[in-house]
């Protein structure tokens, strides 16, 4: 019997149900795990995503194609294949896709994390026969610390900078990480300012009912912003340009799981790195995999070789690599973006909205 899901040149495909999961080309019917650009591409005929993620997905893919949604606990039959969506904890509306047919259950995780994140639902383990898991941080050197501890460090850093009259700039992926950071910090320290790319998503989050602290926009045609007290949240692409000059003296930190490694932080010349990630760390991946009870695990997107081998050797699982068009396995400074796993997802970051382009 052929596998329920297979990799085709358009991505992960379910022939029986005639739909793709996170296709990397335009297809008729796409189930989307989350709205990051390497998972959600514009131009498909029809989309299906978690109800909580619809507004964000619409922001990203633009108008046109219809977006169907599923609420938690709901399922739908697509050409006789049962599909339901379950929280992945990666960002607002991120979902694992459960696909059941002929007594066999597959779960595709997309990206996920097990740590707490007030901006989205917590990861929910789903029992299955075949588990398709990401492995962005699938090496045991990646072990996240308690987010509360890191939040305290960010706050200390912000406070010290504020007292020295320096604006704190924290670089974070504009969708997901930026909003999460905003909820982690202590907004009584000073004002929080968001880059235009960040604000676009902040609005979509608020429209979806997520509570975020007050975040200021940079006024159009501003020449100078703030007095050194602010925390600025911006995508990494601002580093090369003149936008940061608006804030006078700044100190720049990066928020990314890759900041675990000193070499990566030094290479990019960040004064400070906070290892905050929206992906599962190594122990998290193992915990998630164990919880599914799956006998077969397909590993993708990251340190696939190593994790698959580790699962075979330590758990006797039928684990192998599911190829993707992404080379993964490197801290992607690739397109100038050390965002967690999305080397090509800098579109919104590299072209700031017009009201900021001239600043």
């Amino acid at each position, binding site marked *: 019997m052929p596998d329920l899901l297979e990799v085709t040149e358009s991505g992960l495909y379910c022939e029986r149900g005639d739909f793709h999961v996170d296709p990397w080309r335009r297809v008729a019917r796409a189930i989307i795990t989350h709205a990051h650009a390497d998972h959600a591409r514009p131009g498909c005929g029809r989309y299906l995503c978690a109800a909580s993620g619809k507004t964000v997905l619409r922001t990203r893919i633009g108008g046109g194609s219809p977006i169907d949604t599923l609420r938690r606990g709901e399922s739908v039959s697509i050409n006789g294949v049962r599909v339901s969506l379950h929280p992945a904890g990666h960002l607002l509306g991120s979902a694992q896709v459960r696909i059941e047919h002929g007594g066999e259950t597959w779960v595709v995780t997309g990206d996920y994390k097990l740590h707490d994140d007030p901006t989205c639902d917590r990861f929910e383990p789903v029992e299955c026969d075949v588990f398709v898991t990401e492995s962005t941080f699938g090496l045991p050197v990646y072990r996240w610390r308690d987010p509360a501890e890191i939040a305290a460090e960010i706050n200390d850093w912000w406070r010290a900078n504020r007292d020295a009259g320096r604006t704190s700039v924290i670089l974070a992926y504009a969708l997901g990480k930026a909003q999460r950071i905003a909820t982690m910090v202590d907004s009584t320290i000073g004002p929080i300012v968001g880059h235009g790319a960040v604000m676009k998503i902040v609005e979509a989050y608020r429209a979806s009912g997520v509570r975020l602290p007050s975040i200021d926009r940079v006024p159009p045609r501003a020449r100078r912003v703030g007095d050194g007290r602010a925390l600025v949240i911006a995508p990494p692409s601002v580093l090369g340009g003149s936008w940061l000059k608006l804030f006078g003296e700044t100190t720049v930190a990066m928020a990314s799981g890759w900041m675990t490694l*000193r*070499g990566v932080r030094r*290479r990019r010349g960040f004064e400070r790195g906070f290892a905050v990630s929206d992906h599962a760390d190594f122990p998290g991946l193992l915990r998630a995999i164990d919880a599914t009870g799956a006998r077969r695990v397909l590993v993708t997107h990251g340190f696939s070789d190593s994790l698959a081998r580790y699962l075979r*050797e330590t758990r006797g699982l039928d684990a192998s690599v599911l190829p993707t068009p992404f080379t993964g396995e490197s801290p992607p400074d*690739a397109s100038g973006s050390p965002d967690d796993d999305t080397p090509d997802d800098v579109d919104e970051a590299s072209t700031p909205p017009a009201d900021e382009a001239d600043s």
Partner: protein
Amino acid sequence: MKHFADLYWRLDAITSTAEKVASLREYFAAAPADDAAYALTVLAGARQLRIVSTRQLRAWAAEVAGLPDWLVEECYAHVGDLAETIALLLPEPTERSPGETSLADVVRRTILDLRGADDARKREVVTATWRRLEPRERIVWHKLLTGGLRVGVSRALVARALAEVAGVEPAVMAHRLMGDTVADGQAFARLLVPESSAADSRRPYPFYLASAVDRPAHVADDLGPVSAWQAEWKWDGMRAQIVRRGDDTTIWSRGEELVNEAFPEVVAAGASLPPGTVMDGELLAVRNGRLLGFAALSKRAGRKRITKRLLDEIPCVFVAYDLLEWGGEDLRERTLDERRRLLEVLVPAPFSATHEQGVVPDGVIQRSPVVDATTWDDLESRRAMSRTLGVEGLMLKRRASPYRVGRVRGDWWKWKIEPLEIDAVLLYAQAGHGRRAGLHSDYTLGLWDDGRLVTVAKAYSGLADEEIVEIDRIVRATTLEKHGPVRICRPSVVLQLAFEGVAASTRHKCGVAVRFPRIVRWRRDKEPADAGTLAELKRMIHAPS
């Protein structure tokens, strides 16, 4: 230990020189003398003991972390720093000590006391220490344990910070830091006394270091009249000082290691110098009036014990180019012209660089001759002879300048000859270390030989960070095989390789060895088929007559 680890991480994070000096000053002013002495030794870049091999450390870490060895290796290849890899893999500490533990104490108990211990004992101490140290301290401790701690501060910065603590001039402190290591708290305390002590007798002076000229083709425009400059050959040897004081003769390398054992004939010759003499110069390997080159010299330099046979095979001379002390008087503030006149009195025999011109005069201590020229064009044409003479180019030293401390730009310039170059194909790549951790940035390059590409050199510098990132992606996409951290790639990238020379070699499969290979640019305009051949490279070999 915490304070020292804090210092390490602060120095790692900050880029401003002033802030680095301030951090060092704060540490040294507050640290107990024994801790400070050890910290100083490490910061000054002294050779460290390697008590535990990295292989052992990896094996024990794998056991303690409950991970297979291969996964630890993969992590290391990704992280690019073993001390950091292990620190990240180990479980959280369970016996954290609340207060500050003395660095000197930790080092004595967990490192120095392990000298000569058996592996079981080493393992016991290492694993017990892991349970006590936090990850950020572990990294520093691992580096101490394996003798590999490097901190991004120059000796000059350390000297500046200590000078501020002691309230003396930086140059005075730099001089005090020369020579013997600061072994304990008492030695550290002596370092900080306001006036100079009597224990200075073997101490060399801080070396003045030359900088490369900015624009080799425009030296005449940039440096003014040629008459203001003294030109000398740039020897391809080992920089050293001979210090003759009282009955003592010592030879110090630029790394401030005492190298008396490696160069007994030079020590013997130095004994005939008048007491109170310090000369700066170059150790060179020379036999029958012919320079033997740097490779031969290295065979001598690395040894503690020199056999009679090695002495005959690779005899060495000291070629003096500056006189720093004469009759016990510090001459460094005098002009180069004055120092040179005195040097010529002290060492009348000039060394001849030219194997063609034949015979080197007798005597182990000789004088580096001045290369005479009345115009820049003259000098340029002399410089063009460098490769034939076996030298690296010319040194230009301002006649009116004092002998300075460290790398101060402006008075001493290296005017090296242009490197040799060939286009080579990227064949293997390996992940780099430090800033390039996780990126395939160490390349093995090949040239065409009879229709096949053969490896000729390893090189890992010279490209911009963005280019390294881009090549990293190509490496991943063109990997044919993986051997541990090394990837064999389908030939597609052509890189322009520069090097200082080529010599026949029996150790290299291709039959030649290139000196100081480095990558100058990525030849995106070339295909592998356009790269150079081994035959071309072999034609560049300069066969000494």
